[in-house]
């Protein structure tokens, strides 16, 4: 499945598609959640929500 189809499915509410996109970008979210050498769980959760918001906001 290409990214466009995956994104369209995620935007329509397909949870599996959202999870697949989240898995693709997990390394980015984890990297940005490290603050002063420590992993901030709360920040990670916030960034996961940010990713979900981006999925719904981006125009395809």
């Amino acid at each position, binding site marked *: 499945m*290409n*990214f*466009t189809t995956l*994104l369209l499915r995620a935007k329509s509410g397909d949870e599996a598609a959202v999870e697949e996109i989240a898995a693709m*970008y997990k390394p*980015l*979210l984890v990297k*940005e959640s490290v*603050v002063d050498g420590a992993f901030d769980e*709360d*920040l990670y959760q*916030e*960034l996961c929500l*940010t*990713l979900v*918001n*981006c999925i719904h906001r*981006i125009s*395809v």
Partner: protein
Amino acid sequence: MRERNDGKSADDILRNQFTAYLVTAVRNRKIRYLQAKRRHEQRELPLDIEDYAAEPRDETDLLGNLSLIEQLEDFRLQQALRQAKTRDLYIFLAKALDDRPLADITAELGIGFHTATNAYHRMVRKLRRELGGGGK
């Protein structure tokens, strides 16, 4: 097999756009999160001054259940301590009474070493001033 994203196909372009959009959103969110966290930490202190104020002393038979501050005979010293900022007072008491190293105190409170030393010396100056010993 993963296909190479060379940014040429429409799918690759969309993916790159999404990635850029996400990176910007994530970094902005992170900045706001850290700012809010810092503001919260400056307001909330992970301590209760009553832990020190109510610590039992050896002279309980004479002083009963008075708090540490109330046990002081010098009223001016009592007033000076009561008027101090909670965090400054905690740092001062931890170092002066318990002889704890500032490094331990900064680790416990999650503050910088200079912040703790400034707070300690601020308390010392305040107490000297209140007790008539000058501001130094």
